[in-house]
């Protein structure tokens, strides 16, 4: 029924006995108390609001059990900034007002933070395609895409992402 697990979240180890059926997103929110990771669609796994990094890869934390992340390392939106300095995507979202209610933002930022790590310029088509797994119901994506383009598009400074990741590491 219960299993003792240990998950590193944003560098901090959380060790606890949890029900096997507990979803990873609930572990993050209720056990670790990190509520920046959101629950949107609640079960279909289509909204992407719960996107986190599992060993540096973007995954939906509502489509995993907490026990499946035992021994692994997770980054949530709270861990995206480096030493108090915002990730270039966070700054660009701010500059472009790439959010309205903000519910989807954490998931989009976590997905895009991995996507832009490829360290190459991305086209608008590639960016829009990469956003398929994140639903925004307010802004209609235009400002979101603009913000991501500023970081990773033709005129972007993808090296800033690289630099940020080095500082975070």
């Amino acid at each position, binding site marked *: 029924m219960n*299993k003792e697990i240990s998950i590193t979240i944003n560098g901090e180890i959380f060790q606890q006995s949890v029900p*096997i*059926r507990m*979803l990873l997103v609930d572990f993050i929110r209720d056990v670790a108390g990190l509520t920046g990771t959101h629950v949107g669609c609640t*079960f279909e796994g289509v909204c*992407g609001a719960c996107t986190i990094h599992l060993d540096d890869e973007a995954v*939906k934390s509502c489509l995993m059990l907490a026990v499946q992340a*035992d021994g692994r390392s997770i980054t949530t939106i709270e861990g995206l900034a480096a030493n108090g300095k915002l990730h270039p995507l966070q700054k660009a979202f701010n500059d472009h007002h790439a959010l309205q209610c903000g519910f989807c933002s954490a998931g989009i930022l976590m997905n895009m933070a991995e996507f832009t790590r490829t360290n190459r310029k991305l086209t608008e088509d590639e960016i829009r*395609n990469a956003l398929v797994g994140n639903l925004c119901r307010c802004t209609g994506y235009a400002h979101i895409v603009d913000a991501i383009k500023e970081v990773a598009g033709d005129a972007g400074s993808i090296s800033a992402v690289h630099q940020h990741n080095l500082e975070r590491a």
Partner: protein
Amino acid sequence: MYPAVIETYDVPTSVQEALQAFAKRGNDSCFIAGGQSLMQAIKARVISPKSLIDLQRVAELNGIECNQGAVRIGAMTRYRDIAADERLDGAFQALRDAASHVGDRQVRNRGTIGGSLCWNYIAACMPPTCIGIGASLDLVSKGGKRSLLAEEFLQSPLETARRDDEIVVAVTLPTPQKYCGSAYKKWGLVTDALPVVCVCAFIDLGNDGRCQLARLAVGGLATGPRRANVGEKALIGVSATDASAISDAAETAAASTETQSDMWADAEYRKKLIGILAREVITTAFARAARGKHS
């Protein structure tokens, strides 16, 4: 949504351990691969396994091996790794077409080819793709091993030939002839949506540039993924420049496929879509086949 109570959770590190775990836990247990479909079903309580046996740490199930054109894809290989593997280009490129547009980035980071085949959802990309490229599935149980063609393995939606105590360990593809190509395309309501219909084509050209073997597989069907044999026969002897013959074969494939009406498309519209998709993937498969084998 919250899953029903799960009593035990095992994380084996080998296929043998996984089989032992199943034997110990009994018939209410369930293997879980990437979980991108299964977790939805568990959360919706479509299924309520008492025990979960997680295959994510079984290293021998992960990875793609290519040996003189023959390919072995471990069942736990994720979409992202299939989508990125250029060694599949040509004969088995349909796998990359399909894997690169399954779900979304997050799903492709977790979802696996073996999991998709074992779930055999009606609106899935891997089942018709594996039938189209002529894949076989290797299964292992305590009783031994067996190998089944994808089209034998995949039955009606959500049904396969896998017994509960069996693990699909790999998808295998035989060494292709010199001039082979494949392609896959789906049609859904929005970008990268679940396929309402989807088609995979595999073309083998002789030295004269004419098709000597063709396979067409259609997905999104109430019957489960199916080959369009009549359409395949119509392609024999056809060359890449015979646009009208290709078009006719695609129409034949569509006309001979049994389609259903549902909230996404009625039966007639499905046939229309199958015809268009079939023409596109056949044309692409011809072009890829003509390039020949990588040296």
